[in-house]
């Protein structure tokens, strides 16, 4: 439970999106390009194809102007899982396949990171809806994102209340008292979440909500979105040709 911070002090994954060079691109175009890119890279088995794809994504990251430390910090979260997969492959299939899987997953993760750090979350949801994601699912994701910080604030307040009443924490999770305290905290968080969800739904209804979240401003793709899509298309084509041996380049 250590490390919780007030909502106003938390870093959000899209906090640098507005200052990014990729901010003004149509989120639908960015989303489709990213999905196509990730699906293609996920199927690559040739090192050269994966490396070229990786260089492209790194170049885009530099172009985007998102702070490297922000990207690195978010990549580091995925690195644990990537490293685990690579280590497993190392023991079962050897170092070449371990390297392939490490790079392949890393490039996919970096492409997705680039998408989410350069696109405000709510615009992303708008793009999902435009691509026919079910209304209910999109709204659930949106409201979860909006209110997760509120819930984390409540958990932080509960933590401070425990400390103020002399709670020091147990030596381990096997400590019965610590376990009981954490269980109660989790349970109370669920209870409060349920109450808050009811209040939020009442507030939505009172403001005319009918299942659809409408926002100002329509999504509009323009010439530079076409350029971005073309660039992605060319890179995917080239890397696919490298993968299939149509183009030759040996590392």
């Amino acid at each position, binding site marked *: 439970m250590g490390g919780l911070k007030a*909502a*106003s002090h938390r870093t959000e994954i899209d906090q640098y999106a507005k200052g990014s060079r990729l901010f003004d691109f149509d989120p639908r175009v960015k989303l489709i390009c990213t999905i196509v890119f990730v699906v293609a890279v996920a199927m690559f088995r040739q090192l050269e194809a994966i490396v070229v794809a990786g260089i492209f994504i790194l170049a885009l990251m530099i172009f985007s102007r998102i702070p490297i430390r922000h990207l690195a910090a978010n990549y580091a979260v995925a690195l644990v899982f990537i490293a685990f997969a690579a280590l497993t492959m190392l023991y079962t299939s050897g170092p070449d396949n371990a390297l392939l899987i490490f790079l392949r997953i890393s490039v996919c993760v970096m492409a997705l990171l680039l998408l989410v750090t350069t696109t*405000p*979350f*709510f615009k992303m949801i708008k793009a999902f809806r435009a691509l026919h994601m079910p209304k209910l699912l999109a709204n659930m994701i949106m*409201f979860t994102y*909006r*209110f997760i*910080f*509120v819930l984390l604030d409540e958990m932080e307040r509960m933590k401070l209340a425990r400390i103020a009443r002399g709670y020091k924490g147990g030596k381990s999770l096997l400590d019965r008292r610590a376990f009981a305290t954490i269980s109660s905290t989790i349970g109370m968080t669920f209870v409060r979440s349920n109450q*808050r969800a009811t*209040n*939020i739904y*009442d*507030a*939505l*209804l*009172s*403001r*005319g*909500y*009918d299942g659809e*979240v*409408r*926002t*100002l*401003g329509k999504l509009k793709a323009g010439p530079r979105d076409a350029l971005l899509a073309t660039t992605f298309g060319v890179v995917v084509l080239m890397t696919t040709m490298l993968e299939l041996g149509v183009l030759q380049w040996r590392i």
Partner: protein
Amino acid sequence: MEDIGFNEVCYSYDDGHCALENLNFTIKKGERVSLVGPNGAGKSTLLHILAGLYIPTKGTAEIMGVRLTKKDAPLARRNVGLLFQDPDDQIFMPTVSEDVAFGPMNMGLDEQEVRKRVDEALRMTGMESYRERVPHHLSLGEKKRVAMAGLLAMSPGVLLLDEPTANLDPQGRRDLINVLQEREETIIIATHDLSVAFHLTNRVLVLKKTLLYDGPFTGLVQDQDALQEARLELPSFSRLMQRWAKETGKVFPPPLTVDEALSVLKDKYCCRDHH
């Protein structure tokens, strides 16, 4: 013309708990009414019924000509705006301007009209410079004003406010009072803060599951039984003036605001000097 009419309204929750019993009252267009009472009196429940979110389990309720039934509740809700006690419950969108636009967009208005209403609502609440701010980074007072702007942008005929000044600092309280003082809609405020009630409204409903009192404040402040039953406490200057009246034998209508109290003191003190 009546905006609101309640006739023998009762409300019980699903678990059987009876929150409201035999409520009978009407509220005219443009009236300003306070709803006071102890914790658990049913004030929030009543506000939810007035907002069309709950349907009475017995009796009939009419909101601006719409009878409150399950079928017609969405129609009734269009005419009413409810300010929740916790603004985090009613601020949903990523920026202040998008949140204020949420209601008008749901009303089916065109984008130009929505933008106009958003600009006007932000101006009325003094939040123009917060347009692109992220709501959950704002202070409580700022969030309340954003929530208020969201309601005003919908132009409802009736404004319902659940403890609007709770947890606000004095300046935040003053800012919200200033916004509400200029409004011409029918306003119903549920509050423990009698000084806010005195400032903004001229009629009070004292609620404790049922109506204990319905009338002007001047009658309530003299009804010690109703005050005690409802666990209400007058503002300190009102209590001061009551004790002064008792100890000096002076008779005057109980002052409800600082200005009224000052006026009484000037009048009675000056008169006393002349004797």
